[in-house]
């Protein structure tokens, strides 16, 4: 091994804190995500249940109050359901970055991981991707286009991570300069509701925000240790972390 190859970059744990109180549900993150990650315009036969929305903003209303929760892959860290169930190692928890990576070219489309995901954050390519003639020239070269019959999800804009790594390598840096890498949804949020960074850095903005009193995680009690945190000053929003008692929901449904 050559000296240049040292020092090895120390493992990172990329994560997010989404300030629900700042989300206006404008959907910028969703289109930005689709454009960045070469998600094709949805098929004419597609429905809200068969579309590809690696980043999906849920509109939640309770007793007239409204909140918008952007939901994406939670990058679970413990017993990552999708990783453990995939029969052919098409999903893995990347040791270097803590990103749960979905490899469409290894995936054979059994969709077991989708049934395993509690957040419905995984999407299946029910059709071949089709762009209007010529529009394929607007595809982002940093991300491979998925074919039909495979599962895809948020990989934290790995294309941008690669660019940042190349840059770091060219500059002779051991690891990525934090300023060079952030997923497009973070950048696309007009209210800067999303904080992104390395949770292994105790001083990083994201680590601090994640430790904040208003921070919470969705379905944390499943014990999968998601790396996407939410925060809100509103208590009823924080209640959305877990499913409340039956009665309350009964009332809400009825």
């Amino acid at each position, binding site marked *: 091994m050559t000296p240049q190859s040292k020092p090895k970059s120390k493992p990172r744990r990329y994560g997010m804190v989404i300030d629900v109180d700042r989300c206006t549900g404008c959907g910028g993150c969703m289109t930005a995500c689709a454009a960045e990650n070469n998600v094709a315009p949805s098929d004419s036969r597609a429905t809200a249940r068969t579309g590809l929305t690696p980043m999906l903003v849920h509109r939640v209303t309770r007793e007239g109050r409204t909140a918008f929760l952007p*939901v994406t892959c939670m990058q679970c860290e413990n017993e990552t359901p999708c990783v453990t169930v995939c029969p052919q190692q098409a999903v893995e928890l990347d040791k270097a970055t803590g990103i749960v990576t979905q490899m469409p070219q290894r*995936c054979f489309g059994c969709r077991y991981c989708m049934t395993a995901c509690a957040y*419905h954050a995984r999407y299946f390519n029910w059709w071949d991707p089709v762009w209007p003639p010529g529009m394929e020239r607007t595809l982002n070269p940093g991300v491979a286009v998925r074919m039909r019959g495979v599962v895809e999800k948020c990989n934290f804009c790995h294309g941008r991570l690669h660019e940042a790594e190349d840059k770091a390598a060219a500059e002779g840096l051991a690891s990525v300069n934090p300023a060079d890498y952030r997923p497009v949804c973070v950048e696309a949020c007009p209210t800067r509701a999303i904080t992104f960074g390395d949770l292994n850095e105790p001083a990083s903005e994201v680590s601090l925000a994640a430790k904040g009193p208003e921070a919470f995680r969705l379905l944390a009690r499943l014990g999968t240790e998601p790396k996407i945190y939410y925060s809100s000053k509103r208590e009823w929003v924080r209640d959305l972390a877990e499913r409340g008692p039956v009665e309350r*929901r*009964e009332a809400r449904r009825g």
Partner: protein
Amino acid sequence: MASSALTDSRWIARGIDRSAAGPFALWLTPWFVLLALGVYAAWRCLYYGLGETNMDNRFAFGLWIFLDLAIIALGAGAFFTGFLVYLMRIKELKAVLNSAVVLGFICYSGAVAVLAIDVGQPMRAWFTFWHPNTHSMLTEVTFCISLYLAVLAFEYVPLVLKNRRLRKTTSFLVFEHHMHIVVPVLAAVGTLLSFFHQGSLGGLYGVLRGRPFAFREGFSIWPTTFFLFILSAIAVGPSFLILTTRLVEKITGKKLVPRTVFEKLGFISGLLLALYVAAKSVDTLIWLNVTSPAAGFAPWEHYAYRPYGLWLMAAEIGLFGLLPAALLLYRKTRERGVWLLTGAALACCGVMLNRFVLTVQTLALPTLAFDEFMQYMPNWQEVATFGGVVAYGVILYSISYRYLPLFPKERELAAESREEVNHVSER
């Protein structure tokens, strides 16, 4: 007429009467039509992608997986009868063994065929063998099922070679003879494999900690559903054999298997079913009081959504569990053909309901506090594809029944009945 070259009488074993070629072809025709339809639907799914089906991102598994699980459970009769005959040495079950093997082969090959369409990229299926993730239940399933299918095929071979015409070829005859000698080994291996994949099919859902409705704690890597699936599968396997055999008897109007064998099967089925119900009840209690709350889900909320109410659980344990168990265990009912059949039918429905609940209800229930309960209805492509598999099964079974000795006792039973007739005519 027997002598005319048109008929296939030379392929049909001596002394057992089968309908003439014409009617047989007539019987097969509708099934071939259904098969053709199924093939067309399957082709659409492969060619245009799975958007052809009604599955969606929430219902990533649909009708196909549900029915696969169901028929594989029902097909368990194959390995279990083999196990009983060769390892438990219950010789009288030989009367249904051949039929069981064919049924098993049909169920498994059918299931595998549907799976090949169900996955989005069949051509990459072999990745599972090349880069297996040993932590995945699906890996276990894939390995065991593919191997067991091979075993079933090998168990099928001697059966085929027993055909009247083929056995005229000396080498076939001899090979059949020796295959017959090694079949117990295959049966043993088959038992091992089936044990594991029936289990891991259950494990498939038990490990989903993201789906508290299905998630179960367990022993080492295996959740309790692993063991429940094995138990339920071997419990209904024999029942399914009873049903199918009686059905064949009804259709052909022949006695194929001694009544005692049915009762034996019924008893075994009932016994295991009782065991299963007991185990399942305990498991359910633990799940309701420990596992589900620990995951942050109020125990009863899983049943708070119509139509999947508590009645499902009640039906699973009571109507399709205790009742058939009782019917099959209690001698008087067991010996009454009607009750025997009812019991067997209920048992089979029970296991199907169980597989349905685990596959469909699991996905229908919301997990996030702000997502909602969803419904799913298969479309014609899905139904037709599976119909094709059913047709394939019927066709293969009919042909096997016609040309192969599925029921070794048939000849004797026929002779007996002939004697009876004769006595009557004498009196």
